[in-house]
C-alpha cells in the first residue's frame, strides 16, 4: 500500500495491510510532528508533494526494498497539508518471517524516502512565522526573496 493523503494516517489500516500468516515480525515507523526543533516551538507543519513523481519513487522504493530483504509486505503512507504537533506525518510498515529483516528494511525505507521523494515540509512556528525546510539551502537566502 502506497498512499499520499490529506487525511489523518490510519495506523490500524497500515498495520493490517502488512499482516500475513507467514509473518513473525512487523516493524512500524511513525514520523510525528515534534513540538520543539532547535529550541523553537512548532505550531504545526504543512507538507506538500509533487505527486506524480513522489508516488512513482515510493513505488520504486517499495519494489527495491523487497528485492533487498525477504519481506512479506510493505506499506508507506505520507500525510499532506496541515499536521498538528503529535500527529503522524509518515508511516512505514514492513512484515517478514524474522525480525532482523523487518528492522533493516523499515529503516532503509524511511531513510530513502527522506532523501529522495519530492515532499516538502513547511514549519509554522509558534511566533507566527513560517519557513520551508530544504536541507542544504541556507535560510537567509530563502527568506530574502519571500513573497
Amino acid at each position, binding site marked *: 500500500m502506497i498512499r499520499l493523503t490529506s487525511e489523518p494516517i490510519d495506523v490500524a489500516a497500515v498495520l493490517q495491510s502488512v499482516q500475513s500468516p507467514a509473518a513473525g515480525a512487523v516493524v512500524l515507523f511513525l514520523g510525528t510532528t515534534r513540538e520543539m526543533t532547535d529550541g523553537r516551538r512548532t505550531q504545526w507543519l504543512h507538507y506538500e508533494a509533487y505527486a506524480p513523481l513522489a*508516488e512513482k519513487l515510493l513505488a520504486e522504493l517499495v519494489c527495491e526494498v523487497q528485492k533487498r530483504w525477504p519481506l512479506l509486505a510493505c506499506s508507506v503512507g505520507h500525510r499532506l497539508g496541515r499536521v498538528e504537533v503529535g500527529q503522524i506525518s509518515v508511516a512505514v510498515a514492513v512484515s517478514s518471517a524474522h525480525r532482523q529483516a523487518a528492522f533493516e528494511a523499515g529503516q532503509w525505507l524511511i531513510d530513502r*524516502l527522506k532523501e529522495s521523494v519530492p515532499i516538502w515540509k513547511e514549519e509554522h512556528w509558534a511566533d507566527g512565522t513560517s519557513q520551508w525546510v530544504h*536541507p542544504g539551502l541556507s535560510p537567509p537566502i530563502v527568506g530574502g526573496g519571500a513573497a
Partner: protein
Amino acid sequence: MQLFAVARQVAGRPAIAIDLAEGATVADLRRRLAEVCPVLAPLLPAMMFALEDQYLGDGQPLPDGARLACIPPVSGG
C-alpha cells in the same frame, strides 16, 4: 514549469512559462530560468528538475512542450 515549496514562495507564483530552443537541455533550462525569474537564481544550483514522473540529468535534452517541475531539496518524513 511547476514550482514547489520555497521556489514557489520566492517566485511568488506556482508556475512559470519558459521558452527554450529546440534541443535545449536541463543546463539551458537553468540558465533561462535565472534570466526569466532572477529571484530564483540563488536557489537554482540546489534544484533538481523532473519531467512528469522522472528526474532529469543535467545534459538531458527536453522534448517540446514538456511538462516540467522544479524540485527543491526534499524534506518529507
